[in-house]
């Protein structure tokens, strides 16, 4: 077991390093002009611009830049943003932005799980009846319609119906409702869909038939036997979900003007903010790869049938 875990950690680290390298190198081949704000290109001559680049260390060989970044990383220095937030330490940015996103993400995750499981249960309880149809309709809309469209309508219309603020304020809790609900919509659908599927599968198992024959009510069978067994495979996704609350949604954070991490990576890539891109990619890769790893561990923990060994 310990050996397996160690092996997985090493492998995960290798994957993270490769991902990092795959992102790091292409950034060095982007056009040099991309490092300047438009005003700077218009105002300054070429020599001044080259001086500016050299002083940022951008003219060094990519491998030297890589070495410098890794060395600083081990010293705990994430570096400074260059184009998006001129000279602001990236650590400061993350400390400012992650709590906002994580806070909304955490609540939307909880809402997603609770509402999703409730909806899944309802769909199984009323299988092939109205409850099931409604649930399926919801899942269909959320999964088939591009999210931008329904998120936009939620912001414009729902905020009007319930008289909710149009944008997010950290001091107005009412303004947190729409972003949290919007963030949870797809995870509600996801949990409901898979819980229903797993529960329907479990219902055909012999032990369920036995429990029914034993004379348990349908409700009790669903609750005591089917539900408990059906959420085991779902639990593997919990660590991923929990870690991923730090990566916000670009669309939702833009619509509600939330100062979180959502659009940070895309903006950084578009504006060629190399240090920021590197740190974010590294962070997200660690989160996602280790999220899967912790999910496997959790699965082995809750399901005694699973043993963690290399086959």
């Amino acid at each position, binding site marked *: 077991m310990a050996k397996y875990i160690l092996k997985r950690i090493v492998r995960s680290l290798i994957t993270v390093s490769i991902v990092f390298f795959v992102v790091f190198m292409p950034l060095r081949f982007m056009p040099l002009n991309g490092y300047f704000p438009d005003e700077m290109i218009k105002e300054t001559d070429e020599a001044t611009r080259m001086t500016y680049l050299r002083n940022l260390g951008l003219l060094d060989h990519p491998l030297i830049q890589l070495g410098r970044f890794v060395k600083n990383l081990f010293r705990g220095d994430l570096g400074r943003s260059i184009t998006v937030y001129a000279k602001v330490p990236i650590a400061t940015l993350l400390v400012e932005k992650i709590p906002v996103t994580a806070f909304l993400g955490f609540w939307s995750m909880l809402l997603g799980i609770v509402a999703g499981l409730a909806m899944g249960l309802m769909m199984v309880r009323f299988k092939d009846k109205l409850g099931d149809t409604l649930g399926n309709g919801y899942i269909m809309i959320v999964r088939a319609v591009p*999210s931008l469209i329904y998120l936009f309508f939620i912001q414009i219309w729902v905020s009007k119906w319930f008289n909710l603020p149009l944008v997010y304020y950290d001091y107005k809790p009412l303004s947190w409702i729409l972003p949290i609900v919007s963030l949870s919509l797809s995870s509600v659908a996801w949990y409901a869909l898979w819980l229903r599927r797993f529960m329907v599968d479990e219902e055909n198992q012999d032990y369920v038939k036995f429990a029914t024959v034993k004379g348990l009510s349908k409700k009790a069978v669903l609750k005591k036997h089917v539900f408990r067994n059906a959420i085991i495979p779902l639990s593997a996704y919990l660590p991923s979900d929990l870690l991923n609350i730090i990566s916000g949604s670009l669309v939702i954070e833009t619509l509600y003007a939330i100062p979180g991490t959502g659009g940070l990576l895309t903006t950084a890539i578009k504006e060629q903010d190399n240090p920021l891109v590197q740190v974010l*990619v590294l962070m997200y890769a660690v989160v996602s790869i280790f999220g899967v790893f912790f999910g496997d561990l959790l699965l082995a923990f809750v399901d005694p049938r699973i043993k963690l060994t290399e086959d």
Partner: protein
Amino acid sequence: MNRSEHKLCSFPKSLVRNQDLFAPAPFNAAESEKTGASNYSYWKSTLRTFFKSKAVVALVVLVCGIILMSFLYPVFSSVDPTKVSTDRQDWNLRPSLTHLFGTDGLGRDIFARAWYGCRNSFLLAFCIALSDVGIGMIMGALWGYNKKLDPIMIEIYNIMTNVPSTVYLVLLAYIMNTSYLTLFISMASRGWIVEARFFRNRILSIRDSEYNIASQCLGTPMRRIATRNIIPHIINLIIMEAALCIPYSIGSEVFLGFVGVGMPVDAITLGNMVNHGRGSFTLHPYQMLLPAAVLCIITVAFYVIGNKFADASDPRNHV
């Protein structure tokens, strides 16, 4: 307990006891030689189950109609979707008989643009579906059948799904040009690995399923295993995945338009129309609502068709 069982239980007992109602069947030598298998055809049953629902028939007709219209409209209509009017009177016209969906901020006919947009979005989505599912299936089959490939493919999967696609979208846009091709490459470059993993898992489960092992033990030749045991199960997956790929790729197109990368901005696609209409939504809602409605009808229809087909192709649902 389902309804038919209930009926059986309440069958009048007197009737069952009454032996007189039954007549002995005469022995027929020819009949007795027949085996129990019916003339079951997998494809016929799948299609029959699929088309049993009237809603599905309606959706299929609708989708075929939209596809047909989007490819025929540009051929038969003389309205130029890029025709800009220099006369301000033609800008932002509400829907009317001359302009069914109204005109946009430069006097271009939104109805015409919607059909051109459908065509372009469809073409893009079909290409992506073809490449994702095609490459995905081949790679998935190799991956499933070759144990040595497994660790390498898992590593590739982990890397590809963790490198943000915007990185290579921006890079590609820099190297090449923003065109349908960059958009296609950047969307397709990641889709296949996800599909490959999906097919790998399904192929593994089919390979290890009891009927296939039994078939192998009985000495069925490889070709027959492939054509009879595996491919029928894969083909329906392919059709289903391809159908589901279409709403997915239209959705990605809308998203990329929102982010503003990798998309030729003046191209007429449904995604671009929705994104551009969003800006003037409070003032000219029809400019966004109508294209968005067309887009939603398409994505939902394909989603439903994909799922219904998946259900119909499951032999357990065949009657």
